[in-house]
């Protein structure tokens, strides 16, 4: 069972349009049976990348291999990949059974076998006995599962998913996230999922590639991408973060001291930032990394007095924005332990954070 090749390999994959490069030398591997997400803002090239894998765009350069076989020049109907389209693309002229059996019919599988396999895959996605229904008789979530069943019945090496949850309402989307993940585990098929929604990517993926302007900024586990972003873009795009523009004042091994543009010193512990004294830098700090206190006791670095600007109550995701004495504004997670239930606009609070919790990057012009 040990396959020497990963299910999907891309090497320096590039796509040029007339004047601009949509995908810029992207390389990655997706091992068998894993859930791989490509996360990026709209227009970052992720759709182009996915369509190149499916065969609807031909790369301008680089190589694309599935189970070790190059797919360059192979038309989409001859590739061992299936795709769940953004709007699902279920054929409205066919019933559910014919939709799911479509691919098998193309392979000239005998009718009786098609019927059996369609029924069994529908059962596996939790929709037994819907074969005779029309597409428009299903709910959004059911359509979603039919679209996956239609692909999975063909036992593809790789299943591509093009933001299929985008059209669903919030509640259903939360539910489908969990369901997609468990379907993937059940089928043990390689999923490549593209999305601009970080929470979808974080919840479902084994690995995430964060894409920006046609390039991969970082590939890593959801934990790494969230807690150890390697670039300023990733730190800003994945999860909430306070960004502080600052200038390096002192470098002492792993410890950096910076002067924020608003004034005030910041202490950060980070390895290999490559920053030197006098350079401009960006410091990213998660709202939940900032500790809040109502009294001014205690000692430690990165301690500031601030005024509450507004309280944003949102259940478990509640937060406050505070304005420090030097004028800089921070978003701080608000623990719902009852301790801060009485916090109001204008109250004085103290913020503090661990120098190891912040990420620091050289400023890239912007």
């Amino acid at each position, binding site marked *: 069972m040990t396959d020497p090749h990963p299910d999907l390999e891309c090497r320096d994959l590039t796509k040029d349009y007339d004047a601009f490069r949509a995908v810029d030398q992207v390389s990655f591997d997706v091992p068998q049976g894993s859930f791989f997400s490509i996360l990026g803002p709209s227009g970052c090239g992720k759709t182009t990348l996915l*369509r190149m894998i499916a*065969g*609807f*765009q*031909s790369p301008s350069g680089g190589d694309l291999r599935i189970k070790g076989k190059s797919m360059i020049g192979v*038309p*989409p109907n001859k590739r061992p990949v299936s795709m769940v389209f953004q709007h699902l693309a279920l054929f409205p002229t066919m019933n559910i059974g014919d939709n799911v059996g479509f691919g098998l019919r193309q392979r000239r599988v005998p009718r009786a076998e098609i019927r059996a396999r369609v029924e069994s895959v529908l059962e596996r996605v939790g929709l037994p006995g819907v074969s005779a229904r029309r597409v428009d008789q299903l709910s959004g979530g059911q359509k979603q599962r039919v679209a996956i069943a239609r692909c999975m019945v063909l036992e593809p090496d790789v299943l591509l998913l093009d933001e299929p949850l985008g059209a669903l309402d919030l509640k259903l989307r939360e539910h489908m996230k969990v369901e997609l993940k468990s379907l993937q585990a059940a089928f043990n098929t390689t999923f490549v999922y593209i999305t601009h929604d970080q929470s979808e990517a974080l919840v479902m993926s084994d690995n995430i590639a964060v894409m920006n302007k046609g390039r991969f900024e970082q590939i890593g586990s959801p934990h790494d991408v969230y807690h150890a972003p390697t670039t300023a873009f990733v730190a800003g795009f994945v999860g909430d973060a306070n960004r502080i523009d600052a200038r390096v004042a002192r470098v002492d091994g792993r410890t950096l001291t910076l002067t924020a543009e608003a004034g005030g010193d910041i202490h950060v512990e980070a390895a290999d930032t490559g920053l030197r004294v006098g350079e401009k830098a960006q410091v990213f700090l998660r709202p939940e990394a900032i500790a809040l206190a109502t009294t001014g006791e205690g000692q430690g670095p990165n301690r500031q007095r601030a005024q509450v600007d507004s309280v944003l109550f949102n259940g478990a995701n509640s937060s406050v924005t505070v304005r420090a004495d030097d004028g800089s504004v921070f978003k701080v997670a608000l623990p719902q332990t009852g301790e801060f239930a009485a916090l109001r606009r204008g109250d004085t609070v103290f913020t503090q954070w661990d120098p190891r919790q912040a990420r620091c990057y050289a400023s890239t012009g912007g």
Partner: protein
Amino acid sequence: MIPTVPQPAFAKWCYRAYVTAFFVYLALPLTVVCVFAFNNSVFPSLPWEGFTLAWFFGTEAPFVGVFNERSILRSIGTSAFVATWVAGLAVAVGTCNAFLFVRHDFRGKSLLYMLMLLPLIIPGVVLGISILVFSSSVANTLEDATGLWFDGLRPGLILVILGQFSFITTFATLVISARLEKFDPSLEEAALNLGASKWGAIRQITLPFLLPAIVASAVVAILMSFENFNTTLMLVGSDSPLTITMFDKLKQGSTPVLNAVSLLLILASATLGLLSLLFQGKKR
């Protein structure tokens, strides 16, 4: 077979060649009609005898140009008269129908809608003879009963207008309904809310919104009326519209004067058609 799915170059090339051939097929008859309007010969056929404008402006037989050919000029006038009436009536009734079908729900609505579509599937000749037969029998009955003459019910321009109106109205209804369906009724409600009367709201808000469709259907009605042949043929009296006159001349043997008329017709209808499309495009 869409741009994102790769196809062999040869297949693409063949497809393009076919599309090109098709458009040549479309353009060919009209092109020759136009070209031979300038041939200095009494027959609209080869050989090419040289360029002339005589078929437009000529005064001496056999080179009598369009602008000096009485019968043709008169039939253009007749056609214009018929077309104006048909377009006016069809647009008025079509607008009423649009309001009826889009704004009202009543028993038998779908039946009425189907009846409204019927003129599309009745052959023009049959439409013509049915109106001819009916109006004649009405005229006969009335004349027998009253002893008066009812010339309006005998073949002539009134019947031609009614005959063309009877099927062109369906087109006008469809075009105007389609536009009215896109109208957001809350705009009218807003006008009522701001103190407009019901009729005032329709006149100031809804009708201006419908204007592109009304203009487009009027243009379509004029074009259809001008080129209608089958229905008109059965109902025509002594004053014949342009197509009937041209048909008679064509049967007698064609001269390039027909090419000249055709060229003018092509220019006029293309201009009219394009103008209506532009107008629609601008308003959208």
